[in-house]
């Protein structure tokens, strides 16, 4: 038994956590479980891949690896662009589908169902455009270096961890300290009262989509940097995302991140102890255990 699963679990858990923040935010403000959220991670990764490839073709200098990392400046620039573009994808889906259903007063479960259809269309559109073969940001191989005794990590993996911490702190501060965050919390608690108090709920919904999609894009790109990019990467992450957002307590940003790390670690140790073929079952086991023991999540309130 080595400490190595710790690193793999934390890296993968960071990716799950960033996705789960988006799930938990849209769930608490739009009030439905969005089965299409995983696709935003995939779209974020592919959009970044496209932008980065275009940048690399235009300015070959941007492809030169930065310091110890496997990728050049084209990837961070593409990440910023992709956060914005993925937000536009989410806003477009909301404008075409969810917004119309909301205005028609559709039941919550109709929204869940439509997100299921949207996920299907978004995922297969990626497969149609990019085919199902895996893609990579760079072909450069990275050697992992010892960080602690019995624990090795590549510079890319360490960067993922740092970036995840920065993103979570930023989102947490945004929600607790800024007027925009206050508006989001108000709509989350009571949308009717929020509009009486002068908050434009439609603007808040747009903000939540942009934020959730941007975080999903970062998660997808991280996954693409440390593993690979595939059209089904979002589908494979969907169950861990749901498990983490329920485990963290719906609506809680720090909860979603911590729970994401826990899911990631549980997966990594399962792979180590039981075998890689059962990895995908870990989230389901966590989900069932949570629903049995504490459905409001570990960080949720008992009355929720």
């Amino acid at each position, binding site marked *: 038994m080595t400490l190595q699963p710790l690193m793999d679990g934390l890296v993968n858990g960071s990716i799950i956590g960033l996705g789960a923040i988006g799930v938990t*935010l849209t*769930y608490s403000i739009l*009030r*439905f*479980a969005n*089965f299409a959220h995983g696709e935003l991670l995939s779209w974020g990764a592919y959009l970044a891949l496209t932008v980065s490839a275009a940048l690399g073709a235009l300015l070959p200098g941007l492809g030169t690896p930065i310091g110890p990392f496997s990728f050049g400046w084209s990837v961070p620039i593409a990440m910023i662009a992709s956060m914005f573009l993925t937000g536009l994808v989410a806003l477009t889906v909301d404008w075409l*589908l969810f917004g119309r259903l*909301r205005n*028609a*007063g*559709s039941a*919550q*479960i*109709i929204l*869940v*169902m*439509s997100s*299921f*259809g*949207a*996920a*299907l*269309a*978004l995922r*297969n*559109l990626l*497969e*149609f455009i990019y*085919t199902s073969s895996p893609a990579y940001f760079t072909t450069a191989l990275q050697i992992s270096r010892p960080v602690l005794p019995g624990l090795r990590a590549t510079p890319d993996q360490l960067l993922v961890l740092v970036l995840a911490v920065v993103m979570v702190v930023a989102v947490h501060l945004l*929600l607790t300290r800024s007027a925009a*965050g206050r508006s*989001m*919390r108000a*709509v*989350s*608690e009571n949308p*009717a009262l929020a*509009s009486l108090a002068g908050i434009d*709920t439609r603007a808040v919904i747009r903000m939540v989509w942009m934020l959730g999609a941007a975080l999903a894009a970062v998660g997808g790109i991280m996954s693409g940097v440390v593993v690979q990019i595939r059209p089904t990467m979002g*589908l494979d992450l*969907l*169950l861990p995302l*749901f*498990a983490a957002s*329920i485990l963290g*307590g*719906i*609506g*809680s*940003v720090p909860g979603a991140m911590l729970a994401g790390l826990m899911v990631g670690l549980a997966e990594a140790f399962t792979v180590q102890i039981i075998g890689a*073929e*059962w990895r*995908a*079952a870990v989230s*389901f086991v966590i*989900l*069932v255990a949570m*629903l049995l023991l504490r*459905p409001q999540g570990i960080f949720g309130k008992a009355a*929720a």
Partner: protein
Amino acid sequence: MIDLLSYGAFFLTMALTYAVICLGLNLQWGQTGLFNVGVAGFVAVGAYVSSILTTPAIDGRLGGFDLPIVIGWLGGGLGAGFLCFLLGALTLRLRSDYLAIATFGAAVVIQLALLNLEGITGGPFGIGFIPRPFGTLAEQPGLFAAANLAVLIVLVLVCYLALQHLTRSPWGRVLRALREDEEAAKALGKDPVTYRLQAFAIGGFVMGLGGAAQAHFIGFIAPDNYLPTLTFQVWTMLIVGGSGNMRGAILGAILVWAIWALSGSLVASVFPPDQQARAASLQIVLIGVALCLVLLLRPYGILGEAGTLRAPLRRALRRTPNSLSEGQKTNV
């Protein structure tokens, strides 16, 4: 001529196995409003349980109990129904979309189990030599196809009549009352969760039965038959037929299966082999878009407007258009 007829019988038999699955989903969604995202998993459970019970004994794999087909089918239905019961019991007292998440997760885990529990499921290669009804007639293809079709017609009829009887019984009336006015029904001492759980489990039984019948009709099964695409197919069948409408569910199954088979062979003949996978993904994009369009434009289904879902939809419409749904507290 005989060829065309037996292909027609083959096609219709396959479509009718979907009709059975669709009837099960209709009880869960159309009659009760429970969203099941793991249809493929429950169909797989039905198929595998029945196959293990009825195939001849084989080395290196559990089962091969060589039991009669009827026992296998019942076992398959019970297996799927029991699984639905467990998932329902876990989630039905919580938020309505937790059931969706849990069934989605169950399907993922069932797929893993089919692949990895080689001692029970045969792993990636699945199970073969599943006995077919009237297997002794296999020498005469025409008669064999007709007999299989007859078995499926009887099965669909039995399911249809039984479910119709159920929905018109006092039990079905309570289910309807719960949908139209949950508070009033609660005041009469009806626990909504108990009734919904029963409906979900019975729907799962029918779905498992359909999966079992399908397995015995094809003769071999493998994990690849039970990917999420199957769930989407069945959902499209139900939505096209009109949720809540049992005849619509059967018609939708036949119609969508026809469209699927035709467009599949169209893809195979029009696109070069290396582009077929891409064309197939475009086919699924269109299904996803169609599902969303139906929800947006014809929430009662294309064919039938039996309207059992109308009441909850109308109740939902009664809410203020500008405000989101209320009633749940969250903490950010």
